[in-house]
C-alpha cells in the first residue's frame, strides 16, 4: 500500500504509568513478555502493507529509537520503504518544542508531502490491539471520506472521562465528538486512529497552527472538521486496550492468560526486535525438576526452578528453587531468589528479589497514597534494576523507584500504599 503512509504518535510521558516510564516513553514499555507496546501498531501497519512510517517522538526516545532501528522487523527496509524518527525542533520563530499533537504533525508536513501519499494513517503508539487496516482504507475510499475515525462500541462506564466519544448517524457519518466527557451520550469510543486524506490533513493542520485555539489533533483539528468535511466512522470489533495507568497495564497483561485469552499472540503475528543479551542468544525456556509453571506466558531464556502461576515473564527471567511468583509481570532479566515470594507485582527489567523477601501481600483496599488514580487495584510496582533486600516485606499498592540498591533501604517493611523515594525512605 504505497499511497498510505503511517504516522505514529509516540507521545510523551504519562504520570499514571509511574516508574514504568521512568526511563522510556510509553510506546517503549514492555508488554506480553518479549514485545514493546509499539510493536502492536507497527505489526498491524506491516500486515496492511504500509511501507513508510513516521514516528513523532518526544519524551525519552532512546529506547524507542534503538528498538525501531532501521525498521527491518516490520519490513520497513528497502526501496521506498522506511521508518523515520521525527523529533520536534526549535527555530523558525518557535519558542516551544511544540504546542500539541497537531503542532507536532505540522512540523513535518514536508515529510508528508515528500511521499505524496493519498492518505495518512495516524495512530497512537501506545495501544495494544490487532486490527486489519485494509478494510478501513477500503471503506474510507468507497465513502470518499476526508477523515475516517476508528471507533469501538464500549460500555460508557468504562470510557467515562478517559476516551473521546463519537456520535454517528445511520450513514456512518460522524456528527459529534466530545473529548473525554464525564457523561457520554454514545457508546462509540474513538480509538485515536485516524485515516485522513493527505491534502485535507495538511490544510487543516495549517489552519490550526494559525488559529488561537489549542493544538491537539483530537480535540481541535477533528472537531473543526465536523460539519465541514466528510468525517466517517469505522467500527473495530476486535481487541483494543489503552494502558493508561499501572492498574490498566496490569489488567491488559492478564488478557494474555487463560486457556482462550483475549490477546492471541499465537494468531496476531506481532513482530518485535528481541533485545540483545550480550553476545549470546537466549536459550529456550529451561524447566528444572521439580518446578511448576501454569497459566503463564514465558519468554525465551527464562529459567524456572520454583513455582510460577498466572504470570507474564520477559526474556531471561530466573525463578530460583523454592521461590514462588504468582499473578505477576516480570520484565527482562528479573530474578527471584530462592525462598522469595512475589504476588500481584510488576517487576521492571533487572529487578532482583533477594532470598526470602515477600512482595505484594497486604490489603488491596489501601490505594497508593501518592498516585491513587494510577494504583489502587492491589498491585505493587518495582522500578528497573532495583534490588529488594533479603527478607524484606513490601505490601500491596506500593511503588518502589528504579535503581535502588539493597543497602539503601531505610526500612525492610514497606506498608500497603507506600511509595519509596529514591533515597529509600517511605512516603
Amino acid at each position: 500500500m504505497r499511497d498510505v503512509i503511517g504516522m505514529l504518535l509516540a507521545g510523551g510521558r504519562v504520570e499514571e504509568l509511574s516508574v514504568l516510564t521512568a526511563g522510556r516513553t510509553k510506546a517503549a514499555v514492555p508488554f506480553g513478555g518479549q514485545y514493546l507496546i509499539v510493536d502492536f501498531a507497527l505489526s498491524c501497519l506491516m500486515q496492511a502493507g504500509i511501507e513508510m512510517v513516521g514516528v513523532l517522538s518526544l519524551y525519552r526516545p532512546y529506547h524507542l529509537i534503538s528498538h525501531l532501528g532501521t525498521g527491518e522487523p516490520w519490513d520497513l527496509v528497502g526501496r521506498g520503504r522506511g521508518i523515520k524518527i521525527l523529533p520536534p525542533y526549535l527555530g523558525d520563530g518557535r519558542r516551544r518544542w511544540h504546542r500539541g499533537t497537531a503542532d507536532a504533525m505540522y512540523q513535518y508536513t514536508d515529510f508528508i508531502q515528500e511521499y505524496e501519499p493519498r492518505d495518512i494513517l495516524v495512530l497512537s503508539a501506545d495501544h495494544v490491539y490487532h486490527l486489519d487496516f485494509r478494510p478501513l482504507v477500503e471503506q474510507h475510499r468507497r465513502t470518499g471520506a476526508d477523515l475516517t475515525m476508528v471507533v469501538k462500541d464500549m460500555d460508557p462506564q468504562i470510557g467515562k472521562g478517559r476516551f473521546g466519544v463519537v456520535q454517528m448517524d445511520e450513514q456512518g457519518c460522524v456528527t459529534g465528538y466530545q473529548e473525554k466527557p464525564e457523561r457520554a451520550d454514545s457508546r462509540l469510543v474513538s480509538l485515536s486512529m485516524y485515516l485522513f486524506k493527505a491534502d485535507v490533513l495538511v490544510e487543516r493542520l495549517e489552519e490550526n497552527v494559525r488559529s488561537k485555539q489549542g493544538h491537539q489533533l483530537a480535540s481541535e483539528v477533528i472537531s473543526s472538521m465536523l460539519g465541514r468535511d466528510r468525517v466517517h466512522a469505522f467500527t473495530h470489533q476486535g481487541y483494543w486496550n489503552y494502558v493508561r495507568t499501572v492498574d490498566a497495564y496490569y489488567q491488559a497483561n492478564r488478557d494474555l492468560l487463560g486457556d482462550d485469552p483475549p490477546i492471541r499472540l499465537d494468531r496476531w503475528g506481532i513482530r518485535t526486535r528481541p533485545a540483545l543479551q550480550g553476545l549470546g542468544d537466549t536459550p529456550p525456556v529451561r524447566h528444572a525438576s521439580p518446578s511448576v509453571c501454569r497459566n503463564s506466558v514465558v519468554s525465551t531464556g527464562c529459567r524456572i526452578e520454583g513455582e510460577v502461576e498466572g504470570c507474564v515473564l520477559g526474556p531471561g527471567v530466573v525463578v530460583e528453587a523454592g521461590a514462588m511468583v504468582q499473578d505477576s509481570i516480570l520484565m527482562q532479566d528479573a530474578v527471584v531468589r530462592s525462598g522469595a515470594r512475589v504476588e500481584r507485582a510488576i517487576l521492571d527489567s533487572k529487578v532482583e528479589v533477594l532470598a526470602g523477601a515477600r512482595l505484594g501481600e497486604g490489603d488491596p483496599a489501601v490505594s497508593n497514597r501518592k498516585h491513587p488514580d494510577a494504583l489502587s487495584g492491589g498491585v505493587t510496582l518495582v522500578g528497573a534494576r532495583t534490588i529488594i533486600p533479603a527478607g524484606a516485606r513490601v505490601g500491596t499498592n506500593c511503588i518502589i523507584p528504579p535503581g535502588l540498591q539493597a543497602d539503601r533501604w531505610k526500612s525492610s517493611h514497606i506498608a500497603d500504599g507506600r511509595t519509596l523515594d529514591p533515597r529509600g525512605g517511605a512516603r
Partner: protein
Amino acid sequence: MKNPLVLLLAGGGGTRLGELVRYRAKPAVPFAGQYRIIDFTLSNVMHAGFDLVGVLSQYKPISLMRHLRMGEAWNLHGLRRGVRILPPRTGDRASDWYHGTANAVWQNREFMDAQRPERVLILSGDHIYRMDYRKMLAEHIERRADLTIATMPVEPQDASRFGMIWTDDSGRIIRFEEKPAQADTDLASMGVYLFERDCLEYALDEIVATGQGDDFGKHIMPRLLSSHKVCAHRFEGYWRDVGTISSYFKANQDALDPQTGLDLDAWEICTQADVDQYGVSPPVRYTQGADCTQSLISAGCMVGGTVVRSLLSHDVQIHAGARVEESILFNGVTVESGASVRRAIVDKHTRIGANAVLDGGRDQTPNPDHVRCQLAGMVVIGKRATVPPGIRIGSNVVIEGQVDEQAYSGNVPDGATVHR
C-alpha cells in the same frame, strides 16, 4: 596477526540419522530445541572473533542456506565479515562433486587464494562442542607448527570410530591412523585442523591434485607427518559426534542437565530463528493444565499437558491431557489431547492424533531397515507425517515423512517401519 580463513565442511550426508536427514544436511538438523547442529561450530567461530567462513556444502543445502542467511546471527555479516556457501560446481570435467574432505577444499582453491590467508582453519559442521579456537591458534604459533590438529581423549573401545593420534613428548604428532581396529593411544582427532597456508597448499598440490588422495584423515595427515611439523592440540571438555539416532538422543538429553558439560547458558550458542529473528514466535504459553519438568521449551510453544525430560523446538503444541516424556519434538509438532509420547523423535509439522500412544524405550526387537541408525528403542517420525488418533506405536519404529493415515494398517509393532 590476521585471522585464519575458516572453511567449514558441511558436506556429510549423515545417513545414520535416517529420517532426520531425509530433507536436510546433518549440520542443519535441529538440536536442543531452537538450535541446529551447525550453530555450535559457528558460535565457536564467532566467539573466537574470526570473520570469514566458507561453508563447503553439497548435500541438501537448501535448509542450511536458509539457516545461515547472511551470517548476521554469528556476527559474520559486515564490511570484511561474511559466510559464503561454496557448493560444488562444474569445473574441468562435467561434474565435480566433492570426493572427500580434502578434495572439497581443493575445488575451492580460487576462493581460498582470493582471501590471501596466513592460515586456514578447517572445521566440520556436525559436532556439539564449545571450544576456544584462539587457544589452539596461540599454541600453533608458539610451536611454529605447520599444522595443528585438535585432539581429545577417547575410550580405547571407540578408537575404531576416530582418526587416532600418537605424539612425542613435545606434542608433535608421530603417527596418525584413520579408524584403526585397535590403538595404544587415547588421543582422537576432532576433525579440527589449523594449517599454515603453504602447508595446506603443499597438501592440495602434491597429494590431491596428483590424484593420491581426497581425504584429510585417510590420505593427507599420514603423509604430512614426515614432510611438515604437525602438532596436537589437546582439548578437554564436552564434545559429541551426533551421528546416530542413539548418540543424537543422548546429546539432546545432556542439554537438559548442565552438569553433563553441555551448558547452553554458559556456551552462548547463537542461532538464526527459523523464519526470521524478529520474534514471530510469541513467548511460550502455559495453560492451567501444564506440568513441565526438566525440559527445554522454545518460543511459540503452547503447553497444556505434561512434559518431562523433553526438548521442544518452536511452535510445538501440547494439548491438555497429553503427555510427552524423554522426547524431542521439532518445529510445529502438535500432540493432541490424551496422546502419550515416550522416547520419540518427531520431525517438523507432524501431528500426533488424540489418544495415540508412541511407546518407545524397549530395544528388544531391532528394526531391520534402520540397523545403522542405532535406534536404541526410539520411535522416529519423519517430517509432516500423520499419526492417527488412538493408534499404538511400538519401540524401534520408524515412520517416514509425509505418511498419511492410509499408510497404516492398525497398530505398529516394535521394530516396524511405516513407509510412505
